[in-house]
């Protein structure tokens, strides 16, 4: 078996699929370069990103897959999960090697693998839409740090842009060290230097950096959260199932 080493990018993944066909391989193990451990038995090929080759593969997928399935493919990729990278390559092969419509075969392991991962990424995307809590800064930017399990910022940018059209906001991914900044016109990717005055280790901004109205808003939200609870129905198990503990540090009502 040949091992393909790629750099974890979407372009790299598509290039690898191109190489697979170009080199008429039989079986390939796709490995993320940062996890690669060389061994003498392997025949390894380092995938060099190639825009042209990637586009050929993407166009090919476009011909065979509905827009919905193409998004699924991309979303599964955003999981950054090593096994999923392999699944994506196998899934693409399955799609290319079979007549159109093969993606509806939920009896096929590759189809199942992609749709399961798509579901997980979707859930994380949905959680970010739900759990993001903006803090209004002194210079009137609504700021929120996050560290999602998957790289879902690209999936929520347009949601927040459409919703908060008349306010500037930043959503910053602490784990992946980049963020989205909306400046009332468009959403841009930003990196840490941009918000260097903010200590990104602290979720709650120090009061001197926030708008005078921020403190009250946050207090009232906590009050609301407590008042709307019905103690006679308490069910913490269900509560934690819906709001897993790892998200609590980002939720002001849980502080």
């Amino acid at each position, binding site marked *: 078996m040949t091992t393909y080493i790629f750099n974890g990018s979407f372009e790299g993944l598509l290039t690898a699929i191109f190489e697979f066909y170009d080199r008429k391989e039989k079986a390939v193990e796709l490995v993320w370069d940062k996890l690669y451990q060389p061994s003498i038995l392997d025949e390894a090929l380092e995938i060099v990103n190639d825009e042209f080759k990637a586009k050929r593969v993407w166009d090919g997928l476009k011909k065979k897959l509905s827009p919905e399935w193409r998004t699924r493919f991309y979303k599964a990729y955003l999981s950054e999960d090593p096994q999923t990278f392999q699944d994506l390559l196998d899934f693409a092969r399955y799609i290319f090697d079979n007549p159109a419509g093969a993606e509806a075969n939920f009896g096929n392991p590759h189809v199942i693998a992609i749709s399961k991962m798509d579901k997980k990424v979707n859930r994380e995307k949905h959680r970010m839409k739900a759990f993001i809590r903006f803090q209004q800064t002194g210079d009137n930017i609504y700021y929120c740090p996050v560290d999602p399990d998957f790289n879902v910022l690209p999936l929520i940018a347009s949601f927040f842009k459409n919703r908060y059209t008349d306010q500037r906001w930043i959503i910053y991914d602490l784990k992946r060290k980049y963020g989205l900044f909306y400046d009332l016109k468009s959403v841009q990717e930003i990196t840490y230097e941009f918000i260097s005055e903010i200590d990104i280790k602290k979720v709650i901004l120090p009061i001197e950096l926030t708008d005078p109205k921020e403190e009250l808003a946050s207090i009232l939200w906590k009050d609301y959260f407590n008042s*709307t609870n019905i103690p006679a129905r308490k069910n913490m198990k269900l509560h934690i199932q819906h709001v897993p503990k790892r998200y609590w540090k980002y939720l002001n009502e849980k502080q």
Partner: protein
Amino acid sequence: MYDRIREKLSILADAAKYDVSCSSSGGNRKNDNKGIGDSSASGICHTYTEDGRCVSLLKILLTNHCVYDCAFCVSRKSNDVKRAAFTVDEVVELTMSFYRRNYIEGLFLSSGIFKNADFTMERLVRIAKRLRLEERFNGYIHLKTIPGASQELLTEAGLYADRMSINLEMPTEMGLKLLAPEKSHDDVKMPLGFIKDTIAKFKDEKKTGLIKSIPKFVPAGQSTQMVIGATPETDMEIMYSADEYYKNFSLKRVYYSGYIPISHDSRMPVIGSQPPLLRENRLYQTDWLMRFYGFNVKELLNTNNPHLDTDIDPKLSWALRNLEQFPVDINTADYHMILRVPGIGVNSAQKIVQARKFGKLRSDQLKKIGISYNRAKHFIRCADSPIILNEPDAPHLKSIILTESSSKYLKVPQNQLSLF
């Protein structure tokens, strides 16, 4: 200096929490006026209370002053509680401040009845109007319909609200009369019918295409709520009533709220008794089966079975009562029959009918598709099913299933269900 507004919010959120709906789904307002907000069609729960209920909207009363004295309600006139009232400005400001921080999807505004119906409704409408026109707010607004309010006010409300609701309170007229003699289900039917007809009228006008832009009118439809367990109705009476309202008024949702004792009134369960959460859960499951699984309410509840089983869910009970319809062959059966198999949900059923076009399905594939195989296996046949000579009868099968799933099954009921 924050004390006053904090106290108001605590009182008026506390008094509003017994209305269990917090849904923000069905909204379809787009942010096309460079304003703020864009409804998410499927709704978003921004957090969950410690009892596991979704928090999607800022759910408050405008005031808990009320001229009525409904025995089941904390805000009733004779109850000795602190009273408060928001101003229009306060509600608008609070909603915007929460929405801008992505705490909520919008506002659910209800109210005790002060002075009279129109006076109260007019205030609710004024707040919705301010939000839409002055704040250019496109988030979700759920307004309570105040029984007895004028049709002019209801029409205006419908132009700003995404959803409107009015509660039946008790599942039957008899139950309602027992606890709130001044009220009647006719007071609920009238506005429900009026808004339903107005929604239809707006839709028709849209179809004719004569007028270019027809404004939205209650785009997320109407809902209602019944309190369960305060009065002695059977599950059958409750669900037949729900079914009637779904059909006659095209309701989007009926909510069932297990009564939480809040008074020493001898007509109702005493303070400190447990709210009927398991029963509530079973009613929601039945509701789900009616709306998404193609069951007729009479199949699930009838004079032979006026109560839902507590130890097993209504889908499984139905299957056990109708064993002659099983086993279902996964590879040939109609989609609607697959949907009726315990352990198979809507998603899996859809995947099954797609996947079987590619070849006969085996049990390992069904497991991967995501059905709860341990439950379903008693009711299905697939490509590799063993032949069973002595099919167990219903009581026997029930005990097999209960033992197999005992750990999972008898735990504390979930009050927001998704599983069967």
